[in-house]
């Protein structure tokens, strides 16, 4: 079966890509499988300067999921361009660079920096990291700010820009529409939900940062619901993510309106999860009567008939 998907900037052999922050820059996972099997790789967030991240503990197990507060640890955009991208460029897969910042100027700087390389196919704008004070969340929770940072980045890059939305908002549709109007080429959704866990022996929050981002199967229904709602209000494509652990989950995301999907937490559980899902996808699509990825996109959305009683 043909699993290929074409999205702005991304001509992918399949809709599966590891999510940002869950795959580093691919090096570690390349010892487990050929990265060329992936539709794309979304790199770990890049900031202007090196960031050392948060103190430990940075992760905790939760019911059907985990909390993390890594704190955007990364070597800085220059080093990523110099040392990490050439490694990934040797594989036959699309490269998406994820950008984080604490100011609009930083997003602008990092986005512009990626113009130095020809190997990046698209940018993902992280306006939703809940784990650092200035990790972009302030841009991700306000439609005006989200639109402003999107517009600014679009001005300095020729690459398609996918904006990664935060679920920690009252109205995610409003943010989605705002960034679409500001020129976003696509959306990534969802980032983690802010959570906290108490550690009984020490009687304080387990994560050193106190709060962390909740991910894993626990958040899948939230991601599906948000994609379902947003899909009906925007016309740009959606890369869906949030707790995907198998090929059936992928089909759920496609039915809700995702055009492609990213796999996050499941990589920690099983480093082979991405190729396993890619191999399993044709059977699952077949089983439910689909002959391509595109055929399934949004098929689960039912528009309510207009309410005639009020007219």
């Amino acid at each position: 079966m043909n699993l290929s998907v074409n999205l702005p900037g991304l001509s992918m052999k399949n809709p599966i890509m590891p999510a940002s922050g869950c795959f580093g820059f691919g090096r570690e996972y390349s010892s487990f499988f050929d990265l060329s099997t992936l539709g794309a790789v979304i790199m770990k967030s890049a900031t202007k300067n090196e960031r050392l991240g948060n103190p430990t503990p940075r992760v905790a197990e939760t019911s059907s999921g985990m909390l993390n507060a890594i704190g955007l640890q990364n070597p800085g955009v220059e080093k990523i361009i110099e040392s990490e991208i050439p490694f990934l460029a040797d594989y036959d897969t699309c490269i998406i660079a994820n950008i984080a910042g604490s100011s609009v100027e930083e997003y602008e700087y990092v986005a512009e920096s990626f113009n130095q390389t020809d190997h990046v196919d698209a940018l993902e704008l992280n306006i939703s990291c809940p784990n650092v004070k200035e990790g972009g969340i302030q841009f991700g929770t306000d439609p005006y700010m989200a639109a402003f940072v999107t517009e600014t980045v679009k001005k300095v890059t020729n690459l398609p820009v996918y904006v990664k939305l935060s679920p920690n908002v009252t109205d995610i549709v409003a943010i989605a529409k705002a960034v679409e109007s500001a020129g976003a080429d696509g959306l990534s959704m969802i980032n983690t939900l802010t959570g906290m866990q108490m550690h009984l022996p020490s009687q304080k929050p387990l994560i050193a940062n106190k709060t962390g981002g909740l991910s894993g199967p626990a958040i899948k229904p939230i991601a599906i619901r948000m994609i379902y709602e947003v899909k009906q209000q925007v016309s740009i494509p959606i890369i869906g993510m949030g707790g995907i652990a198998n090929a059936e989950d992928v089909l759920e995301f496609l039915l809700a309106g995702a055009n492609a999907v990213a796999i996050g937490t499941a990589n920690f559980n099983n480093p082979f999860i991405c190729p396993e899902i890619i191999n399993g996808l044709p059977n699952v699509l077949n089983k439910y009567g689909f002959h391509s990825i595109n055929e399934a996109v949004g098929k689960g959305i039912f528009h309510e008939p207009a309410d005639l009683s009020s007219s």
Partner: protein
Amino acid sequence: MINKVNMAILKKKFIAKDTIEFVLKNEFISHHASPGQFLHILIDGLTLRRPVSIADIDKSSNEVTIAFKIVGTGTKKLASYEPGQSIDVLGPLGNGFDISNTHPKKVLLIGGGIGIPPLYHLGKRLSENNVKIISILGYQTKESVFYEREFQELGDTYVVTDDGTHGYQGLVTDVLTKVSSFDTFYTCGPTPMLKAIKERLSNSDGYVSLEERMGCGIGACLACVIPTSDGEGYKKICQDGPVFHAKEVNLS
């Protein structure tokens, strides 16, 4: 080289209070793992794997021994597994004790609680190479003591308990004065213990093995990190470690 393998549980034994030993069977792990490396174990129903260090390996029978203490949900569930079942393991992971390039004649092993198992594996390998072993083992109380006889077979062994119910009373650092000279020390245990040892033995060559909550276990997620002594950044415990030269990391 890292692989995802199934390891059959051959034996299960309570070796001390809340402390369990599994003997597992797998050819790949038994032939590739070195002292100080660990296994990342998938536990049914949990999202994150749990890192458990290797206590012993018998290459001839492909047997790998692990020992762990029940401290939370993951280890409690792992403790419920029985011989006949098998566990999904990612391993061997990390960089263990560097014994191929160093040739000490006499070493000091200092273990605290559940940090003791990897030192047993190390001690056995060094002992096979005719290295003289001295061990200091620290436990909370008499009921927590395990592997005492095993270490005694390797060489002089000093046991201390916090409450004095077995061996000397006090901390592992309290018996350091009883130990004559040694070339290198190797230690694993709670971070405050490692820190105290590092300070006391600052003039000696030594290695510390660290523990931290982990995510991927292979160096990609950056969950388990330790600041370096030079203040320049972090090392990844799962990939660069868990064993570090004592002077390399900052155990604040």
